[in-house]
């Protein structure tokens, strides 16, 4: 389509991983195409946890996520329209993806009720009754102007099963069609459907097959990463990618732990998002390959090492030690900025390492090394063994 161009440039010989190049039609991605697999940090309300757009670009971040539910409330569609969309409002010329608002509604608003028409809910701000329909979600997302928009889907917890899951899958499909007809800017924005079906293989397969028929510019895999058993999780991911077209980007929603990024890249996913790296920074935690360092802890008082001596972020590059950061975390907000910079950079570099390994056909070795550092002396979790075995990697 005019709004989005995706090309797979490298394919892993062993796993289902691939490297791709994602371009948007609008000229605001002046800093070059987005290489996949890509991680998208979450900038919920039109900003990314204190970092400026220039700082994000410096960390090689080319696409971020905004939340329609929050943006629809503040600053609201009227102001965003006046300001010419979110890109210009927040001074961000990179890629932007918005969710539909449905997930936030169901998870944040206690009194929500799903009907065929849409999600009915009581505004937590002024208690008035509101209705988020597929049409309304698309209308707001068209105003926000993100490069990629999400369909409104009927969200059910990934830990429940039974008829509600099936009902949600079919309803999501009907809502998809309503979203497609409501979409008023298809030449500028791409609408992604979402594969649903909970943890039921049959439903998920049906869902994938149905949405592929709509021939959309890219596809998302939803309804996972909600606390379900990891062995179920990876099976649903790989089943979904099996049924999605090879030439379109695949976005696995809500996934962002380092180990999940490595495994799910191997399962053929191209795009990821998660609040974890920025949220954990706020609590004084820095990401490293073996997990995270909680810099509040007394053990860092005299630890004069960098967070990670391999890290290329401005914080590690300028020589801030764990001991120094220990003196400012939970004391100065600037510490949040510094750890957010490191954590976003960590995610970006991890994705870049994954891509480089795929390009150089050494992704299996990369995974083996990564898993061994991640698990250290502990046993490798079963789901990691099984998932990797499914893509021909024996640990």
């Amino acid at each position, binding site marked *: 389509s005019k709004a989005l161009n995706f090309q797979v440039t490298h394919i892993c010989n062993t796993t289902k991983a691939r490297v791709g190049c994602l371009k948007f039609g609008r000229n605001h991605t002046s800093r070059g195409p987005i290489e996949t697999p890509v991680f998208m940090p979450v900038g919920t*309300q*039109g*900003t990314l*946890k*204190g*970092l*400026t757009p220039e*700082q994000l670009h410096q960390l090689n971040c080319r696409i971020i996520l905004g939340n329609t539910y*929050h943006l629809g409330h*503040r*600053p609201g569609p009227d*102001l965003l329209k*006046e*300001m010419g969309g979110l890109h210009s*409002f*927040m*001074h961000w010329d990179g890629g932007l993806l918005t969710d539909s608002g449905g997930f936030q509604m169901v998870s944040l608003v206690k009194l929500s009720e799903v009907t065929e028409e849409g999600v009915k809910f009581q505004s937590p701000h002024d208690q008035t009754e509101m209705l988020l329909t597929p049409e309304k979600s698309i209308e707001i997302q068209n105003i926000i102007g993100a490069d990629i928009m999400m369909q409104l889907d009927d969200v059910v917890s990934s830990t429940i099963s039974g008829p509600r899951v099936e009902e949600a899958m079919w309803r999501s499909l009907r809502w998809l069609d309503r979203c497609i007809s409501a979409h008023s800017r298809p030449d500028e924005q791409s609408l992604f459907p979402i594969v649903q079906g909970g943890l039921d293989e049959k439903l998920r397969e049906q869902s994938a097959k149905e949405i592929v028929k709509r021939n959309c510019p890219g596809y998302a895999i939803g309804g996972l990463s909600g606390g379900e058993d990891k062995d179920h999780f990876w099976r649903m991911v790989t089943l979904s990618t099996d049924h999605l077209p090879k030439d379109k980007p695949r976005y696995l929603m809500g996934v962002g732990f380092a180990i999940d990024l490595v495994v799910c890249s191997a399962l053929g996913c191209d795009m990821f998002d998660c609040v974890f790296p920025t949220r954990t920074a706020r609590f004084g935690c820095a990401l490293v390959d073996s997990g995270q360092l909680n810099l509040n802890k007394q053990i860092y*008082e*005299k630890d*004069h090492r960098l967070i990670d001596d391999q890290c290329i972020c*401005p914080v590690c590059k*300028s*020589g*801030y*030690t764990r*001991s*120094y950061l*220990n*003196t*400012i975390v939970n*004391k*100065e*907000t*600037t*510490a*949040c*900025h*510094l750890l957010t*910079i490191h954590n976003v950079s960590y995610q970006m570099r991890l994705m870049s390492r994954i891509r480089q390994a795929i390009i150089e056909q050494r992704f299996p070795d990369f995974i083996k090394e990564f898993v061994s550092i991640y698990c250290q002396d502990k046993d490798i979790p079963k789901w990691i063994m099984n998932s990797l075995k499914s893509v021909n990697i024996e640990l």
Partner: protein
Amino acid sequence: MATMSFKTISLSSSIATTANTARLGELAFSTIPKIIETPAAMLYVRSGVVPDVTYDLIPDNVTRLFEIPLGSLVDSMKNLEHTGSYGSFARITDPIYCPFHDSLVELRPGGSGNMYSSVWTKAGRQELNIDRFKKLIKLIQPSVYEPMFDGDTPIDKTTEKRLVKDRERSRRFLESSLGDKTILSNTIIALVGGQDKRHRQIYLNDILSHISNNENNILGVSFEGFHSYGPSTENIDLNSLKPIIEETQTKLVDYKNILFTMPLLWRPDNVIHGVDLGLDLFSGAYVAHISDRLIILSFRYNDRMSSNTLGAEYNINSKQYANGKQSLVVDCDCYTCKNYTQAYVYHLIQTKELLSRTLITIHNLYHYHGFFQQIRENLKANTWNDYRIMILKQYAIEQEQKE
């Protein structure tokens, strides 16, 4: 050996129309090839960082002399051991001045004894005895520091007895610093005595010999004990302190290269009065103070700015800016004003996003330090009199007309 030196630069005489003692000066460093022109504001830094802003975002026009209150470093003593200096520990290459008190934090009474004094932080009191103070200074290795003093002399509640103690203790603390060769160099001596002219005179007389004996190691003096620091000092009437400050300057008239400084939340109109009083170095804490309260500096400080309708300062957290399509200040060239609208900053405040304070602080730093730059230029260009009136008018038109 002193690594920092100060010299005053004489102004052409026509400036004397306001009968003031405003002066230009230069701070030089033996270790870094740079000169800081005065009058200047320092960059307020706490625990090694500027509140809410990472160093890459600090505007270029900011004077990079870091003002790091001691209170923010006491907690780090354990971490700081064996790191060489606080500069290398916190990755700071610019010169550091450690004042004893934090201009942002109000000093509560009762913090000092015969052998100790206290620094105050938001979290409370930190007691320092002479040895611990010296150890801290040795760990930090600041470019310049202020020896420990008492200074607990709140305006209305200070008795004669308290003033005597204040002098005795401050002198004892000063002598213990000057008597220790390892921390002898580059000090800014606290002048105490509350608002009592007589006690201030006595104290200055008491320590004058130390100034003359250590001229190479003493960079300047700081007027302490006038107030209790913290938010209320924003509104201090500086002119009421004029006779006391002038008396001190008369006494130090032979020491041309002694720098004058004073901790305060330096609102721009008071900066003008401070320059008139011959002060050289100003605490930069005012920027942190107002930015934390979401206040935007908007006074006109140079000819290129059009006169604005916003007043000298305004609070951006007001509904009237919710749809504001202009920048925080029209004609401002700072990063924030070049790229963002009032509506966006307002949105960030409503959503409690960290970036709001970041953007506000960037603007205020640019504005405040740009103002000091203009002060220096107008002093050089002999246009000080017009300039000071232009600023004072914006802050208090009525008051200025009375003069």
